[in-house]
């Protein structure tokens, strides 16, 4: 089991509470981007292309905590930029853990080993290491040689100290299924708690508009990767989301499931599209025309199958009915098999 029982219980209790209260739109994972500055310059990344004075801006710990309090999601993901660059990141994490948020600190791990002393292992803190494949693929993706080896070394060090460690992998259209499967084997051998995978998306403002996956190619790629999957592979995400990636079920996007807060404010409408910003989470919920987004509703969403839009849809499916719950159990117990 990749996700600890306490975390599953917390999320299940939270979702069921929302349902009992009749809340139609609720956040599942708050995405906090505390800065956009990164120590890598990956080609195609739409998150780091800003003038220097913008890259120098950072959220304060108080802003991060206030966002978590206001949003109320049980899980907080901290991507960036590279969060470990933020000098107050340990304080930010301590505050979120004190609030009993399950925090995923997303990092390329270049600074991780050096900074491990600043963090305390906790069931609430997961180090989510960006790994885009085996050495050749990863170093190519991040446009720098040697990063894979640094990350592997940092993962070992973090595991040795008792941290929860997962990997997060974005797969592009040139991914080789055999190599990806071999990569999964390597990560499991390393001893990570679980893996998170997602297809890429062409950011509206990203320079890389052609290298991301189209919908059918996404399904085909993930079906080839995840069919007959090994029992040793553990994924730190909804089994129904994996079924969705494989083309075995259809979901509509749940863009409010992973709301994004950064130095500009609350991002409309989702983590991927930047259509504007508002000051409060409630304003985001109220002021966004959610019906304008999703497959069949918006050209920008046509090819998107990214986790930040569909993982929440899968979780909603799980808790939406007994049959959804049954599908989840089946997909968990028989991964890679068709769960109807």
């Amino acid at each position: 089991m990749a996700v600890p029982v306490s975390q599953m219980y917390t999320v299940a209790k939270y979702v069921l509470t929302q349902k009992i209260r009749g809340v139609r739109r609720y956040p599942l994972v708050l995405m906090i981007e505390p800065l956009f500055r990164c120590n890598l310059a990956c080609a195609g990344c739409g998150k780091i292309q800003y003038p220097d004075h913008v890259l120098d801006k950072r959220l304060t710990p108080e802003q991060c905590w206030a966002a978590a309090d206001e949003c109320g999601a049980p899980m907080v993901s901290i991507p960036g930029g590279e969060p470990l660059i933020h000098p107050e990141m340990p304080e930010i994490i301590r505050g979120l853990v004190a609030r009993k948020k399950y925090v995923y600190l997303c990092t390329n791990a270049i600074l991780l080993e050096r900074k491990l002393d600043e963090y305390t292992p906790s069931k609430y803190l997961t180090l989510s290491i960006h790994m885009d494949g085996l050495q050749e693929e990863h170093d190519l993706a991040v446009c720098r040689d040697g990063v894979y080896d640094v990350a592997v070394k940092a993962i070992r060090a973090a595991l040795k100290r008792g941290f929860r460690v997962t990997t997060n992998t974005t797969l592009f259209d040139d991914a080789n299924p055999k190599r990806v499967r071999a990569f999964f084997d390597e990560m499991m051998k390393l001893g990570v708690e679980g893996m998170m995978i997602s297809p890429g998306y062409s950011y509206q403002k990203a320079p890389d508009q052609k290298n991301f996956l189209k919908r059918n190619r996404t399904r085909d790629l993930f079906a080839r990767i995840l069919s007959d999957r090994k029992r040793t592979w553990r994924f730190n995400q909804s089994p129904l989301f994996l079924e969705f990636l494989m083309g075995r079920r259809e979901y509509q996007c749940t863009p409010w499931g992973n709301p994004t807060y950064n130095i500009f404010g609350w991002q409309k409408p989702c983590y991927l599209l930047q259509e504007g910003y508002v000051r409060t989470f409630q304003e985001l919920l109220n002021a966004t025309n959610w019906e304008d987004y999703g497959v069949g509703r918006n050209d920008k969403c046509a090819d998107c199958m990214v986790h930040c839009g569909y993982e929440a849809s899968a979780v909603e499916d799980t808790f939406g009915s007994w049959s959804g719950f049954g599908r989840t159990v089946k997909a968990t117990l028989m991964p890679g098999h068709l769960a109807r």
Partner: protein
Amino acid sequence: MTDSTYHTPEGGALEGRLFRPATSAEQVEVVEQAFDYRGDVTLELTSGEKVEGYVFNRETGDEPFLQIYPKERSGLRTIRYADLAAIAFTGKDTASGKSWEAWVAKKESQRRAEAEHAAAEARARGHL
């Protein structure tokens, strides 16, 4: 709309161009371009004041406004469309020339040089 170039634009890119909208529709259009632009712009206000910075938000309601992070001071500034006279794309477009295709198409030596340059910048900031 007046569209004059006072730097050499790259292949029709916005960088280096100045827009002086003549109608509110043109104003909306050029603010949208500024919002999408990944570099600094310089706003010329009807008062004659100039504000250089990054436009990160705009709202086209009854009283349309944009929000900008000025380059030379902290905090954001909100400016009404009604107070805008011109927008110049004065800053470097930070997304330009950084596509995956461009990266792959470059010679190995060029890629290596760019990677080393990026690493050196990160090292200089203490981020490596």
